């Protein structure tokens, strides 16, 4: 038979350029194949610590992002009314002159009049440095509306959380439980990990109201009712504790379970730890029965002992936990109905956890020495691990729920042990080792310290002398004392209301605040365009930087067009949100593998120039000239501390360090990164890889690498004393006092031991929970402009469980009105059986405003797509107490997206999803009618 001869060894490309992906926040390594100087094909980098060669759909579709018609082309000045999308192109010089003209007077008189918030920024250590140099207290990124509950609860509890902070020990774990995961967080590593577990037959349990994605492949699916995860977890704690299936040795050695707590309700220190003269928490030594600081050499802390001194009884934390969690209110039978899980199922999950953690415990032959000087011949492992993200954290009880999950892991003794959860450098790092928030504002001067951080009591709150919030987002105020990531979702509504004060300029980067990144989207659009009696905008000036023609562009006065991710320098820094693995510290760069073909500039380079134009001290030389030519110059030459810069790799050995993490500036540093595939790793010695918070070999390695300045061994905080300090204030103790209307709530909800309270009972007029998820193949709103990805997820029906479909007489393709206490939308529905029977959901951020993203006005994203955001308000309805409480977590201020409850009813099909908005003018026109893409042809 005659077969055609084909070339099975064609040339693949001219060159491979290795950089870091930015199609979501995972930061995988990519090989960019170039043909004739153009991007031809993108694949995963096999050597890269994050993705080890694999790449998701978004990453492979990067080529269509780089060629997207929605890319902004030049700086824009608004010429029509705000929201119209009418702009004229201007030069960079004019753009920067306008920005300088607005910002210089603010800095000279009152820097707090600038609110600078940076969305899904991967350069927060740089943008915050710029904001600090400017002097405004009003800086944060998007953590407040993302997953700050998870991060903050983790850091206060154990010095780290999931994703960037740590990962399961995929090699050894045998039981993996996922709670409410957002599948674009750590997505390739989780998929790779699930694949490993599947290959060796480990069990995966998914706890999620929706059975898609990871939950679809889970061996067991627990279709929990939204908002009740904390109750379910505390029920597991109840059952395990009652059965003695907790690791008492681990609790005694590595946690504050044995620390003594003042139990005298009449004392001003009620609920605080007993401390020695150096402020160290005290425990009882089992060998001597005497008090000792927790870290004394050779100490054996006693979990059971109590002490009465000066008439005051001090009990160990563990006693308080037993009092609380053995109570019948946490029994499976008591929580089953609220959680939507049978008591038998809760017991089965607890039993499996107990079986694997204790019957399958194992030891690795690794000798190590702990911080009390004791050498252990082996490392004990407990092969149970957990992962969770926004699903459990985006509730107003999310902080306590995340705390509960971390406490469960710790009770099992499965954090930082083989088979369990492992931190990634620079974590573990306790809350005390992080900065505190700073709000010291002086005209013409930098801020007095970093904006964001961790508070340890009322004294650390960001309040003005009159007690009012110092920040525009009211972060670190009594309303949400531990808001470590700020509250980006409150900035526009607070600025519009002039509460706590008015601002002049709102400066945003990469945050689609007039669309899918805001609650109350319709209201936000109105706030951005609202005018006062004189016809001036209530928010006077808005500067926005984005690479694409997003919905937010139309609402700004000045647009600074950013580059795409293949046209820029970036650093994925250990000072920021690093890409480390449990066995290695790692950081990475992006570099321009192609040059922009438009008049656009990397936003960080623009800040270098704007900083110099504003004479910011950190961005200006002594002679007044610009200090950093661009972001690349900053990345190489900036030192945050002597020997510690944005990048840890290939530093110059010398006085400030060995060059292995710490060291002097190396002018060839970026070239070294490029030659190494765009990243740097430093491996942790094997015997330092577990028990890291207490393992002195790790602690010394971390100091040498520049992660710490001195060893920082610490105890896991089952009981978080800073929460208790806020409660004490609410009880009337101390000088700084909360407003009276907040006292009861602080007393109830800022409990130092995890609790659960109901924030989302689906009853009465709104009997159905409503959630969103992001598809694995699309990141926020970015994917919809991508010609390949929008063919996968161009539509987002409301998925309705079978029971509700029947109840409301709905069939696939019908339309329903979905009503919340705040508003109504009319949307297409589709039946889904693998779904909690009282929950509806849709894909987030598929819905688009007509005219945005260079899509045609009849694109399905704009005609049938929709956002649930219209149904969610920043404030909750009045509940009879005269207050409209924030729709946020009372501890951290995290946006409580997933507390949404609705009712649905069938309606006649409208011509398009409601509410429908008029088109905005596209500043970039529209895309081509056909793509027949082939590079090098």
């Amino acid at each position, binding site marked *: 038979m005659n077969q055609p001869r084909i070339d099975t060894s064609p040339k693949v490309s001219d060159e491979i350029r290795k950089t870091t992906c930015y199609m979501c926040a995972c930061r995988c390594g990519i090989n960019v194949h170039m043909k004739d100087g153009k991007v031809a094909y993108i694949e995963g980098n096999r050597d890269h610590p994050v993705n080890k060669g694999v790449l998701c759909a978004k990453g492979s579709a990067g080529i269509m992002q780089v060629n997207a018609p929605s890319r902004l082309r030049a700086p824009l000045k608004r010429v029509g009314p705000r929201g119209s999308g009418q702009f004229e192109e201007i030069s960079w010089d004019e753009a920067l002159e306008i920005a300088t003209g607005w910002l210089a007077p603010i800095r000279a008189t009152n820097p707090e009049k600038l609110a600078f918030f940076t969305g899904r920024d991967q350069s927060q250590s740089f943008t915050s440095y710029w904001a600090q140099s400017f002097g405004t207290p009003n800086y944060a990124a998007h953590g407040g509306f993302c997953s700050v509950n998870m991060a903050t609860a983790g850091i206060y509890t154990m010095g780290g959380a999931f994703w960037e902070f740590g990962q399961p020990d995929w090699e050894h774990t045998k039981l993996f439980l996922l709670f409410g995961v957002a599948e674009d967080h750590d997505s390739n590593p989780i998929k790779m990990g699930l694949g490993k577990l599947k290959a060796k037959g480990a069990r995966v349990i998914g706890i999620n109201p929706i059975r898609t994605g990871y939950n679809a492949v889970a061996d*067991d699916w627990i279709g929990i009712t939204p908002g009740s995860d904390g109750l379910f977890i505390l029920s597991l704690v109840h059952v395990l504790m009652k059965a003695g299936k907790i690791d008492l040795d681990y609790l005694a050695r590595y946690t504050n379970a044995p620390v003594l707590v003042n139990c005298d309700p009449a004392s001003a220190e009620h609920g605080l730890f007993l401390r020695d003269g150096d402020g160290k928490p005290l425990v009882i030594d089992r060998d001597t029965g005497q008090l000792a600081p927790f870290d004394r050499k050779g100490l054996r802390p006693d979990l059971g002992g109590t002490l009465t001194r000066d008439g005051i009884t001090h009990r160990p934390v563990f006693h308080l936990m037993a009092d609380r969690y053995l109570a019948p209110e946490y029994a499976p039978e008591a929580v089953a109905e609220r959680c939507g899980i049978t008591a038998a199922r809760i017991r089965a999950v607890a039993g499996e956890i107990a079986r694997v953690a204790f019957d399958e415990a194992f030891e690795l032959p690794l000798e190590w020495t702990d911080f009390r000087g004791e050498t252990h011949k082996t490392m004990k492992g407990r092969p149970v691990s957990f992962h969770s993200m926004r699903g459990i954290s985006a509730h107003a009880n999310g902080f306590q729920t995340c705390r509960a999950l971390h406490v469960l892991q710790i009770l099992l003794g499965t954090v930082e042990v083989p088979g369990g959860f492992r931190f990634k450098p620079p974590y573990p790092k306790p809350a005390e080792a992080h900065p505190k928030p700073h709000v010291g504002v002086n005209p013409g001067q930098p801020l007095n310290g970093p904006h964001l951080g961790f508070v340890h009591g009322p004294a650390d709150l960001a309040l003005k002398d009159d007690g009012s919030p110092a920040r525009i987002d009211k972060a670190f105020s009594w309303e949400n004392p531990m808001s470590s990531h700020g509250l980006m979702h409150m900035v526009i509504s607070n600025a519009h209301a002039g509460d706590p004060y008015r601002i002049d300029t709102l400066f945003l980067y990469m945050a689609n605040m007039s669309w899918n990144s805001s609650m109350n989207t319709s209201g936000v659009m109105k706030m951005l365009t609202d005018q006062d009696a004189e016809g001036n905008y209530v928010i006077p000036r808005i500067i926005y930087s984005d690479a694409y023609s997003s919905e937010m562009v139309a609402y700004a006065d000045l647009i600074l067009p950013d580059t795409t991710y293949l046209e820029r320098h970036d650093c994925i820094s250990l000072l920021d949100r690093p890409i480390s693995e449990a066995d290695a510290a790692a950081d990475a760069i992006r570099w321009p593998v192609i040059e922009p073909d438009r008049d656009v500039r990397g936003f960080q380079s623009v800040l270098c120039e704007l900083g110099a134009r504003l004479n910011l001290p950190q961005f200006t030389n002594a002679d007044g000239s610009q200090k950093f030519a661009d972001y690349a110059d900053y990345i190489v030459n900036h030192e945050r501390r002597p020997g510690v810069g944005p990048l840890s790799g290939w530093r110059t050995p010398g006085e400030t360090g060995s060059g292995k993490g710490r060291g002097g500036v190396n002018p060839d540093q970026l070239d070294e990164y490029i030659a190494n595939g765009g990243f740097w790793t430093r491996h942790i010695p094997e015997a330092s890889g577990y028990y890291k918070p207490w393992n002195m070999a790790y602690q010394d390695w971390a100091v040498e690498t520049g992660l710490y300045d001195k060893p920082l061994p610490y105890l896991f905080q089952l009981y978080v004393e800073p929460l208790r300090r806020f409660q004490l204030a609410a009880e009337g103790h101390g000088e700084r006092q909360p407003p009276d209307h907040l006292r009861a709530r602080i007393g109830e909800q800022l409990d130092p031991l995890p609790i659960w309270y109901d924030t989302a009972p689906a009853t009465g007029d709104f009997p159905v929970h409503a959630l969103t998820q992001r598809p694995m193949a699309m990141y926020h709103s970015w994917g919809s402009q991508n010609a390949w990805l929008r063919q996968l997820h161009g539509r987002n029906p409301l998925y309705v469980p079978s029971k509700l479909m029947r109840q409301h007489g709905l069939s696939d393709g019908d339309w329903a009105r979905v009503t919340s206490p705040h508003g109504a939308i009319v949307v297409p529905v589709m039946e889904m059986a693998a779904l909690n029977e009282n929950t509806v959901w849709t894909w987030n951020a598929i819905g688009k405003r007509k005219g945005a993203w260079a899509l045609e006005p009849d694109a399905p994203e704009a005609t049938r797509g929709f956002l649930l955001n219209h149904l969610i308000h920043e404030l909750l309805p009045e509940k009879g107490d005269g207050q409209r409480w924030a729709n946020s977590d009372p501890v951290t201020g995290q946006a409580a997206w997933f507390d949404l409850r609705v009712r649905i009813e069938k309606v006649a099909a409208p011509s398009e999803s409601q509410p429908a908005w008029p088109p905005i003018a596209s500043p970039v026109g529209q895309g081509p009618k056909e793509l027949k*893409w082939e590079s090098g042809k």
Partner: protein
Amino acid sequence: MTELPASTTRKMGLVIDLDTCVGCHACVISCKGWNTENYGAPLSDQDPYGADPSGTFLNRVHSYEVQPDQGAAQLIHFPKSCLHCEDAPCVTVCPTGASYKRTEDGIVLVNESDCIGCGLCAWACPYGARELDQAEGVMKKCTLCVDRIYNENLPEEDRVPACVRTCPAGARHFGDFADPESNVSQLTAARGGIDLMPELGTRPVNKYLPPRPKDQLEGQIDILAPLLAPVVEEPTGFLGWLDRTLGRL
């Protein structure tokens, strides 16, 4: 009418693990990217930014809900591309000989220079695994990355189809089914790999590993319940248990 080879030396193909596929579409887009740049005409997209975007894909992931007799509904992600059948109806139906099955490895290909775009092969394929490119007017299908798997310009470890190289969960495996010792033969044997619609007699080379049974934990409660026996009956006795247990540590 085009003839199939009586046999092929090797039978190259894929094992797709339905127990592990999370439905992320990584394989779909990696395939689109590679095959847009490589074998044959690029995979075009019509109305890419408009009301009804529609492009050519050689691999797609479908998702199906399954309601078992007992227990909760399940969602199965089902990636689908050409199965490189041994008795490939798409080849025998081709009027020009453009569709053929390679004798050396069994890969089914379309010789685009002979393809008249009549679409008979897509009609004959019971799996819907062929798509006519609307810009080029030729039939497109999975080539098993014939321009990767032997490509001496690629490192040896990369000589696998793009979908296999990129799959984050490791749900896709590539190898020679004619070799009983190969990774794909072994996996198929160990996990009970199945043919897709075997009753059609197409004898597909690609195999699917079925999902493992789900939601079994509650059924094991007899084994698990003794692990949860309370250490004491009354909460007040817990501290006594604690003291006794600590004494033994």
